């Protein structure tokens, strides 16, 4: 009899989702799927709103990466205004995106994933969370929390509030960086850098231990997509979107405004998140976005320490850098690069400029705004009336773009570890950890890290629950 294993909800990710594993008559997994079970319907809600309000409204999509939504939204607005954003505003927006990458990655690594990495995949689930980490390695846990706070404070200094700063606006930003805040950032920079380097050292030390996981946690060749600067270096705010093949060859490098020519979206019956693929190749054109993808598409990071790590990372070979487990490594290198970029640009007097916002009316009926959110490239596409009211909005988020790869990842893990109907908890955690490597952001709200119970069901083909396992 064919069974299905259901993991619901998936814990330590942002939002609510479940995993189902379909078993064949012999209890061997045939396919696994990652379902997003929440529907939020934002795009419909935006219709009729003035596009000026969109940055702040869309920032509500997500409590983890509001800055990314603000930025993509404001950039779409820039195009509707058809103005050139003052250079100082561009620098300030960039600063915010680095702080965003840093704080979000710190959350993903230290709070959500390091319990698996440092305490072990099979450790006691009641302790396998940030609190267990605090008990086990208080210094590291504290440093991680402070690193995230460093990024949050920069965002707060720019935006006035750390979670939903309506600070990036069409045409620029609302105000510059206060001098006192700049000095605070300067003081905390060395510590932030040290924490990141420590974490990188730690992760590299663990790579041997997780060799098995690295092989099966979503290791398969796919394309990658990310922004690159004009000189080919790592980019979070602007630049061209570059698709590369699994072997690193550049397949396409185009302006993000042309995204619809290259990315196709399809709705899935089993998830509220759409799936996307590289259009010229059809549904076989699976690609990944996010830290791993960005490090696969760019030619260099553009800062000394991060470049050193980057060379080591890429030295692992293209086969290795197609392993989703290395998302963690890529994330740490991106934190390092963000810290260095913040350091390099902190003394730019433009950060205190008074000329940070260009004003104009509606000069174009359409705008596409694109930036790199911590979890991957993000597009906001608006069409507006002559008066600037939203006619239609399309948001293309990272999790949709990783959807196909995430499904492949859970299938790969299930096939490797599950051999019968009796599934140990540690294996279920591996399924979740495979998803967690992508750090998917399914919605808006965070929930207490590691606190949610895990519910697993084995379901027969007729929908009847064969057995049920609860943890937490």
């Amino acid at each position, binding site marked *: 009899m064919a069974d299905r294993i259901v993991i619901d909800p998936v814990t330590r990710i942002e939002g609510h989702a479940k995993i189902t594993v379909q078993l064949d008559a012999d209890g061997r997994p045939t396919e696994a799927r990652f379902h997003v079970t929440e529907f939020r319907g934002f795009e419909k809600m935006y219709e*009729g*709103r*003035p596009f*000026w*309000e969109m*940055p*702040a*409204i869309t920032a*509500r999509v997500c409590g983890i990466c509001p800055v990314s939504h603000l930025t993509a939204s404001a950039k779409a607005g820039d195009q509707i205004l058809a103005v050139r954003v003052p250079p100082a505003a561009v620098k300030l927006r960039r600063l915010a995106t680095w702080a965003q990458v840093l704080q979000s990655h710190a959350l993903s690594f230290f709070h959500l994933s390091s319990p698996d990495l440092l305490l072990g995949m099979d450790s006691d689930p009641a302790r396998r969370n940030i609190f267990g980490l605090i008990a086990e390695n208080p210094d590291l846990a504290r440093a991680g929390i402070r690193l995230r706070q460093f990024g949050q404070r920069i965002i707060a200094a720019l935006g006035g509030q750390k979670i*939903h700063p*309506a600070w990036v*606006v*069409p045409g620029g930003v*609302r105000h510059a960086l206060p001098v006192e805040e700049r000095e605070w950032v300067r003081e905390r920079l060395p510590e932030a850098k040290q924490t990141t380097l420590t974490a990188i050292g730690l992760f590299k030390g663990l790579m041997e231990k997780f060799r098995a996981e690295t092989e099966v946690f979503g290791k398969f060749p796919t394309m990658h997509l990310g922004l690159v600067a004009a000189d080919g270096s790592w980019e979070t705010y602007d630049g061209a979107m570059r698709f590369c093949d699994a072997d690193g060859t550049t397949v396409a490098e185009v302006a993000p405004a042309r995204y619809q020519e290259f990315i196709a979206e399809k709705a899935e019956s089993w998830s509220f998140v759409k799936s996307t693929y590289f259009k010229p190749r059809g549904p076989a054109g699976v690609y990944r976005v996010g830290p791993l993808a960005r490090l696969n598409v760019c030619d260099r990071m553009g800062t000394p320490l991060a470049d050193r790590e980057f060379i080591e990372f890429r030295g692992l070979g293209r086969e290795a850098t197609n392993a989703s487990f290395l998302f963690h490594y890529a994330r740490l290198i991106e934190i390092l690069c963000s810290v260095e970029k913040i350091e390099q640009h902190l003394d730019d007097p433009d950060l205190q400029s008074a000329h940070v916002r260009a*004003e104009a*009316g509606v000069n174009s009926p359409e705008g596409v705004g694109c930036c790199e959110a911590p979890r991957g490239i993000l597009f906001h596409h608006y069409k507006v*009336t002559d*008066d*600037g*009211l939203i006619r239609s909005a399309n948001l293309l988020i990272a999790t949709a773009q990783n959807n196909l790869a995430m499904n492949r990842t859970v299938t790969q893990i299930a096939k490797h570890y599950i051999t019968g109907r009796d599934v140990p908890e540690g294996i279920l955690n591996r399924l979740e950890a495979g998803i967690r490597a992508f750090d998917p952001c399914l919605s808006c709200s965070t929930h207490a890290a590691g606190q949610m119970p895990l519910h697993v069901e084995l379901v027969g083909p007729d929908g009847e629950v064969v057995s049920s396992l609860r943890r937490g």
Partner: protein
Amino acid sequence: MSAVTLTINDRLVTAAAGETVLAAARAAGIDVPTLCYVDGLSAHGGCRLCLVEVGAGGRLQPACFMPVAEGMVVRTDTDRLAEYRRMIVELLFAEGNHVCSVCVANGNCELQDAAAATGMDHERFEYTYPKRAVDASHDRFGIDHNRCVLCTRCVRACDELEGAHTWDVAGRGAGAKVVTDLNQPWGESPTCTSCGKCFMACPTGAIFRKGSTVAETDHGRDRLQFLVAAREKKQWIV
């Protein structure tokens, strides 16, 4: 002008005959919450937030409209009033689409202030989620009917201060809304002088400056008061 003496919250208060209970109370330092009332504009008596109890039976009267009388006994601070005021604010919230977190007037909104002042910590009525439009056809301003509480402050400011009478109210009951001229797009109004007084008068984010993002509204209400003083008292004090 003759003076009258009345009692407000057990205190003897002197006021000029013809004055309202609201004016008398405020002159005596007794606060009465208001929403549709604006100093210098005619009273409207629409929101009922200024309700007070008058006489031994505690008859409910709007303070902004009620003239003082000799020997009148007024209470502004009973539990019953507190409950009614809070309910009024809850009804206003349930009637429109007020989402403070994404509103241009967040932090600068008298409806939001009223909610805080009346202790509204949740909504007891079902939201009606009315389908209302946004008119952004004017060059400088827009009106989001979702956020309009029909206080008619814009109507009175436009009529009484600017003299244009671009704004008025059309429709009845739940279908009532403020309109510009003959219910045409604001941008096509032949009478609007673009002075912005309606924006200054609006208590919420309903009338907004175009280009504003969330929590970015400064109504500049002191300018409205400056105009009132200049007009009525011939005093130009900034």
